[in-house]
């Protein structure tokens, strides 16, 4: 797209310029000219051509802004230097290899015309310490001198890499290199396998200036090129040196020196109180520095380096090689070069003149080389075996032996290329080697770029790409030199073509990358989440003693996407913070939060055991009690060992994350729980209910709109006929056996649709839970019974009765001393009232068929007159009753899939024995009753039962006999 825009811009500009040229050069007839120019000039036809007017008209007609055209022209002038040049990137797999691990480098070339299969990839690998010119005495020399030529050069790095490409791990000890029978040669054409252009032109892109040069060199000094320098004197390239002069005594001439300027202030306090300030220059006048005694002076001086100054054709400035300086020295100043110590000592030469003599900025002119005097240097950059060449179509046994390829296999690497083609790197965009810390790698990519040459043929620039694009490194041998241009007649014009030379091998050391480059201990990417999404504190309700049983199990998990090690090798440290306040008050700054996990009591309450450890990527707690805090925030820090790849000590990489949780505060109050009209859950703790009881739970309607009722975690789906969603009241049947427990829970909020007229969306929400436990209905008679254990043992008259005490015991939970009383035998005298204790307490209003018996004789109430019994008499008192759900509830049981029968009356009964004690009120009028009661008491209970059953049997037989006697006997 960018390229297309550029082309459009070029075409537009060329068209504009052409139009102007045409307009300026045509010679139409006067009439034609009048008609042509009349409109443009705004006159009747002036024969004088006004170019400015024409252009103004053009700008006006085509809405061309002059600033934009100027801007465009300025960009156009340098557009050639902005064009993209071929480059290459290298990727590694694995990205952070360990010592001894195989790593594959892949080259991704860019801005080349052909595909990678037609380009040459010359890889080079430098192991740690294998620097160029490594002395042979170095213990690594043998390892580094891969080509065995006795010196470490760039070719050794290339051989090290391309040998791995070519032999692909082939064990050369198995091969016989006496001869090579396979045909594995390869003739490498410059520029790529499919390059068929007539002349090959290699180009070099200077990534700093943006200029492109043909890689060529002038063939001789007599080349037709001439340089003219603007120097009236001797032009040289000087190099500095340090001159030591031994001086016995004398003077050194010091010229006048400007030391800068200073302020001088004058004040007149006496007369007028005025002051004035003037600026004065400070100058040290010319003088001689005299000295006595023996001394050695070290003086900076210059000498002629011997290099010839050259004229840069682009800048038109005289240049010298690196380390030398252009100096144009006048004839009478030549004594400043290689100065004589005597002249210095005598003061004939100023030491200040010695440091920087002559003129350095020297203009020059140069003319181009002739085409015939320039020699193209378009050459491969292949790795070569000493004394042999690569890509020459000859790959004999010696070369096979050198590269370690199989002499019997034309493609040892089995990649479709011949062995020599692999050495040449044709299409080998990958190389795999065994990594050692400190290894560096690079690649030279050779291929045709998109840039066309100016030559009168189809040629495109053959270009080399390096991974760091460094072809010119100041202060090194890697430099673009011999910059010049030559002239070639193309299409009748003299076209100047810049050329330069560079030794790419010298630049390889600046074009390395390493798998460990940029591989520092980065942060671990930590993502956190928690479950359940709406955790509730204390959601499990309360136990029978009113103590909260606990809340949801909150699990906070951390996921590290870029961990290098197994999770069990990662160390996690968790901390919990709390925030008390509304959402509006919420602050994320850590100092606004209170750390909770440091509090042992908090940890104990919420079942938190471990806060840190290996592999602890999940943190779990039970939301039992979080105090007054409305928000919880979980912080995690993770750390793992980080291998720096140096093979020695590593370091750690770490990650941090936090997540905010807003738990629901659960309540156990605020809901009404009824069975029929009876409130069955007035007290705290678990609500005691009976089997198959219909329960109605109601949450007072308030600021919430939506309700989710659940029983034991399952949604209650029973709705009324006119209901389509759960409301603030719900009914259900509690099934199960005595001892079973259930949890009713309601979650409510005020979320409403935006179009709704109902008020809401204030973020109101609440969770209420209650526990139910299914119990068997029971009663207990007497002041102390299985349901009602008093603080002390009492008789039926309400007095303390020590005779019924069985001792005391200490409660484990409350550590209180409790009396242990008889629960079946009580003392009493006179008239006593038997008050049953009901369990659950609320059944007392729903009992039917309640009967009291005294020694089997039914009574009207629980008020019993014992005065007729002699002291010491044992009186049996029993109670019988039935609990029934209301008829209306029982009628709806079929809606729940239950028969009314299952809620038929539940019988409850209890009996006690009363030992009659002496009573002060024994009236004579009750003596008769007393005798009868005593008689009744003395008849054993079992006898009464036997009597009843026998009487019943007799009645049945008798009745049957009577009935049959009325009928006809069938079998006589």
């Amino acid at each position, binding site marked *: 797209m960018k390229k297309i825009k550029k082309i459009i811009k070029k075409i537009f500009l060329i068209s504009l310029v052409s139009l102007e040229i045409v307009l300026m050069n045509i010679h139409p007839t006067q009439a034609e000219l009048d008609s042509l120019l009349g409109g443009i000039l705004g006159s009747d036809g002036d024969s004088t051509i006004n170019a400015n007017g024409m252009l103004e008209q053009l700008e006006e007609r085509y809405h061309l802004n002059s600033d934009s055209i100027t801007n465009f022209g300025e960009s156009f002038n340098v557009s050639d230097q902005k064009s993209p040049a071929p480059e290459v990137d290298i990727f590694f797999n694995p990205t952070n290899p360990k010592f001894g691990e195989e790593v594959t480098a892949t080259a991704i070339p860019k801005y080349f015309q052909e595909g990678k299969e037609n380009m040459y990839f010359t890889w080079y690998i430098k192991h740690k310490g294998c620097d160029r010119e490594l002395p042979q005495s170095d213990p690594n020399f043998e390892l580094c001198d891969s080509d065995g030529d006795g010196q470490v050069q760039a070719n050794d790095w290339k051989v090290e890499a391309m040998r791995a490409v070519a032999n692909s791990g082939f064990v050369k000890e198995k091969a016989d290199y006496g001869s090579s029978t396979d045909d594995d040669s390869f003739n490498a054409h410059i520029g790529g396998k499919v390059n068929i252009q007539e002349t090959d032109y290699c180009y070099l892109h200077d990534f700093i200036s943006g200029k492109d040069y043909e890689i060529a060199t002038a063939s001789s000094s007599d080349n037709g090129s001439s340089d003219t320098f603007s120097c009236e004197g001797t032009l040289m390239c000087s190099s500095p040196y340090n001159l030591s002069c031994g001086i016995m005594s004398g003077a050194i001439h010091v010229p006048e020196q400007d030391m800068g300027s200073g302020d001088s202030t004058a004040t007149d306090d006496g007369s007028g109180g005025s002051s004035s300030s003037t600026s004065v220059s400070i100058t040290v006048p010319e003088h001689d520095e005299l000295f006595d005694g023996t001394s050695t002076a070290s003086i900076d001086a210059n000498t002629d380096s011997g290099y010839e100054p050259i004229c840069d054709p682009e800048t038109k400035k005289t240049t010298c090689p690196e380390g030398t300086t252009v100096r144009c020295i006048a004839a009478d100043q030549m004594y400043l070069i290689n100065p004589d110590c005597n002249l210095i000592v005598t003061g004939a030469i100023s030491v200040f003149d010695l440091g920087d003599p002559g003129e350095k900025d020297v203009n020059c002119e140069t003319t181009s080389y002739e085409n015939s005097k320039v020699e193209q240097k378009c050459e491969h950059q292949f790795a070569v075996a000493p004394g042999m060449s690569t890509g020459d179509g000859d790959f004999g046994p010696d070369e096979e032996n050198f590269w370690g390829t199989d002499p019997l296999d034309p493609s040892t690497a089995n990649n479709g290329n011949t062995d020599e083609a692999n050495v040449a790197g044709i299409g080998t965009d990958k190389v795999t080697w065994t990594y050692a810390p400190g290894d560096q790698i690079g690649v030279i990519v050779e291929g045709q770029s998109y840039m066309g040459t100016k030559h009168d043929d189809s040629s495109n620039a053959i270009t080399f790409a390096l991974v760091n694009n460094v072809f010119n490194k100041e202060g090194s041998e890697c430099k673009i030199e011999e910059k010049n241009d030559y002239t070639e007649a193309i299409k009748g014009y003299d076209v100047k073509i810049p050329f330069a030379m560079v030794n790419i091998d010298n630049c390889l050391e600046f074009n390395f990358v390493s798998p460990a480059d940029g591989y520092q201990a980065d942060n671990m990417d930590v993502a956190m989440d928690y479950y359940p999404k709406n955790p509730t504190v204390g959601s499990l309700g309360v136990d029978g003693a009113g103590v909260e049983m606990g809340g949801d199990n909150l699990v906070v998990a951390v996921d590290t996407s870029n961990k290098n090690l197994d999770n069990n090798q990662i160390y996690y440290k968790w901390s919990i913070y709390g925030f008390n306040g509304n959402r509006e008050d919420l602050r994320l700054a850590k100092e606004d939060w209170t750390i909770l996990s440091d509090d042992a009591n908090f940890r104990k309450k919420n079942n938190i055991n471990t806060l840190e450890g290996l592999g602890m990527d999940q943190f779990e707690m039970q939301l039992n009690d979080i105090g007054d805090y409305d928000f919880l925030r979980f912080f995690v820090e993770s750390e793992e060992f980080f291998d720096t790849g140096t093979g020695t000590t590593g370091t750690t990489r770490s990650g941090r994350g936090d997540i905010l949780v807003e738990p629901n505060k659960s309540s156990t109050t605020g809901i009404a729980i009824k069975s029929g009209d009876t409130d069955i859950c007035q007290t705290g703790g678990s609500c005691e209910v009976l089997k198959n009881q219909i329960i109605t739970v109601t949450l007072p309607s308030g600021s919430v709109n939506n309700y989710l009722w659940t029983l034991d975690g399952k949604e209650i789906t029973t709705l009324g006929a006119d209901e389509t969603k759960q409301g603030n009241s719900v009914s259900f049947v509690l099934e199960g056996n005595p001892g079973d427990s259930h949890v009713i829970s309601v979650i409510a909020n005020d979320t409403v649709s935006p179009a709704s007229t109902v008020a809401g969306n204030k973020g109101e929400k609440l969770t209420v839970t209650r526990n139910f436990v299914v119990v068997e209905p029971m009663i207990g008679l007497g002041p102390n019974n299985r349901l009602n254990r008093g603080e002390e043992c009492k008789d039926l008259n309400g007095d303390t009765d020590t005779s019924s005490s069985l001792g005391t015991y200490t409660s484990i939970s409350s550590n209180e001393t409790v009396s242990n009383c008889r629960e079946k035998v009580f003392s009493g005298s006179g008239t006593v009232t038997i008050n049953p204790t009901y369990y659950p307490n609320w059944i007392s209003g729903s009992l039917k068929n309640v009967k009291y018996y005294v020694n089997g004789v039914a009574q009207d109430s629980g008020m019993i007159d014992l005065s007729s019994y002699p002291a010491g008499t044992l009186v049996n008192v029993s109670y*019988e009753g039935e609990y029934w759900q209301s008829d209306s509830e029982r009628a709806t049981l079929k809606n729940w899939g239950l028969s009314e029968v299952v809620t038929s009356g539940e019988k409850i009964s209890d*009996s006690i024995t009363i030992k009659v004690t002496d009573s002060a009120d024994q009236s004579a009028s009750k003596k008769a009753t007393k005798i009868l009661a005593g008689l009744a008491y003395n008849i054993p*209970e*079992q006898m009464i*039962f*036997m009597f009843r*059953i*026998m009487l*019943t*049997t007799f009645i*049945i*037989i008798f009745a*049957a*006999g009577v*009935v*049959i006697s*009325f*009928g*006809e*006997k*069938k*079998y006589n």
Partner: protein
Amino acid sequence: MDINYKSKKREEIFNIETVTTLSVILICLLLFAFFTVKGSFQQVILGLVVFLLLPLLYIKVILKEDLNNFGFKINKWKEGFFIFPVCLLIMGGFFYIIFSYTNFSQNYFLGKYDMVNSYAYLFVYEFLIVNLFVFLYEVFFRGFVMFYFGKRFNVYTIFIQFLLFLIFLDMMGRLSMDYVFYMMTALLAGMIAYKSKSLVYSYLFSIIVLIASDIIYLKLTK
């Protein structure tokens, strides 16, 4: 008085005696279900009276029949011992189905801890309690009910006594899988008693099956 069923003419089914007897049977069942008792002793006494004494008195006093006609004899031992193993085989198959294809073994409640962990306790339980009530059920349902209605309904009397037994269980709140072997035993014991005209074989069959079922249950689940 010996009664030969084949020689008797067909009786009118719903005469006053039949209705009265059926009423007595139902009264007995209701009495056992709802008569107030306290403790095991009274419960046993109630069972003896309702299921043994009352039927015997009714047979002897009201019906004036010979007890032999109600299975209190050992005759037709060939029929008894022929059908006995057949019913045992049927029961064995029933065992297999119940234990294999239902959750009986998970839900069956044999008794308290001592029962399922002590064979001595189990032995006492089976031979005192189970044995007693098996005997009483045999006398009442097979002896009294089935043999009485056998004169009128022939082989259908097996199902009549079976139906009454189910009603009885329901009244007791025991019409559940825990008593599935009692139900099946009632049906098969009825067949045995009907064929053998004796309560001895049906009683033996019932006691063997019910004790075996408990032992098999223990073996399979412990």
